[in-house]
């Protein structure tokens, strides 16, 4: 376990800022205690400092997880967001997409969201903007990337892709081993 280097921090923040913009500040500066990002076996964990200090007593090989896994660094140094980060990112999300009940299941199986399944979308969402996907009952379902800007969505065909799938809560069942 170690703190992130500057490059790693940059990569992480750049990815997070796609979803929550400058709200990353809210993650770093919390009233309920010190929180930090730590790297363990290529995975980035968001953890309270108190817990991190306790975890530091374990040898590296024995430590499986601590705090919340936000994602992992690929071998080429890119950061990949995991669905486990959803609980922390959803409240700060800048751009959201709501899916109709009929399209929910498709998304939870790892499919891209179609225009036909699009319930609502935040205004002023740009193309390729990171979005948090919600169900119509405001339950966060996962992450995505807007395939079309809001204005384009209105004129899009019903079967055209509106939101690319990035991660969804279905992964808790599908990819249990990968998520730790």
């Amino acid at each position: 376990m170690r703190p992130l280097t500057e490059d790693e921090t940059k990569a992480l923040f750049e990815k997070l800022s796609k979803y929550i913009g400058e709200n990353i500040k809210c993650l770093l500066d919390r009233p309920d205690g010190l929180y930090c990002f730590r790297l363990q076996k290529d995975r980035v964990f968001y953890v309270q400092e108190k817990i991190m200090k306790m975890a530091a007593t374990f040898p590296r090989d024995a430590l499986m997880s601590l705090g919340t896994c936000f994602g992992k660094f690929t071998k080429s140094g890119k950061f990949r967001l995991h669905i486990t980060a959803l609980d922390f990112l959803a409240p700060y999300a800048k751009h959201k997409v709501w899916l109709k009940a009929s399209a929910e299941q498709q998304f939870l199986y790892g499919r891209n969201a179609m225009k036909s399944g699009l319930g609502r979308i935040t205004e002023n969402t740009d193309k390729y903007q990171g979005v948090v996907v919600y169900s119509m009952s405001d339950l966060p379902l996962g992450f995505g990337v807007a395939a079309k800007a809001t204005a384009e969505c209105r004129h899009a065909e019903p079967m055209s892709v509106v939101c690319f799938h990035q991660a969804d809560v279905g992964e808790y069942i599908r990819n249990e081993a990968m998520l730790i």
Partner: protein
Amino acid sequence: MPVDVSGVLAQAQGRASSLPTCQVESGPLEWVLDPGHLLISDPNALGDTHSVEQGNQLDDRARKNAQVLMNRVFSLPIVRVEEVTCVALPAPVTPLPREKPIPKPKPLTKWEKFAQEKGIVQKKKTPMVWDDVVKDWIPRFGYKKAVAEQTKNWMMPYKGNAPDDEDPFEKAIESKRERVAKNELQRLRNVARNKKVKIPKVGVTPMVEKQTGKNPNDLKKAAELAKKSTASLGKFQPNLPGSLEKNIKPSQGKKRKFDPLVSATEKDKNMKILQQITSKAPKLDLKKAVGREMFHQDQERETSKRQTAGKKGKGRFNKKSGERAKKGKASGRGGKRR
């Protein structure tokens, strides 16, 4: 048992006729034969179909051509070489390309160039020279000349006012050695000139110093390099002898260093990085701008529609019928389109 001769003959004939003949007729164009190379070329055109038939045709053509070549070879004069029957092939006719490229002309040496410019032509020297002392023909060069020289020069006179301790024999050997060395130097100079290598004109070169290892700095550098030149970059190498080891600088390589696990400055550091990321100068994103514009136009259209609908809509709640209000709405829309 009686044998039907005619039947057997007929059978043999039938078998023979089913086999391919060795008498082959040529196509419209004659073959070009070069038995010297055992080469035959068939200038007749092939059919232009790509099919199984074509393949069979090619097989047939190849067989026929080989047959023609064989016919020619067997018509050549036969020679017996150590109980083996051979054929005397004529001289080949077809010119073949050279195996290797034509050698480049040798670059001229300095003397050759000079001679060419001045028009000096070397005279052909006879290989043997008459020697009056030995009374014999002696070769101009070579070991026999050296032998003759030894017998001739069994005694050498002191020259002029040479010092007493000088040995003329040794002096002769020395001068010969020097001439050889000079020639070698000139040869190397010629090579260097032709290869366009820069060489100092005169004097002792620093190269010599390096080669002998006399420069103490060079030696130090070499020792340092040699120590580091292992698979583990000299980590497990024993120390060099005292003074050398002392002078070796610590390795210049950058070591990976991570921040301590717990530090008070971490939060500030992260905030700084965040500041850097969020305060990037805004770029003009054309797609984004177009998207925004489309969005605004949509909004405006919608609000204006709502306003007009609201104005006309008042009529709906008036005493007048709803039908008229609807008409008005429609006309309003049409008006906007115009």
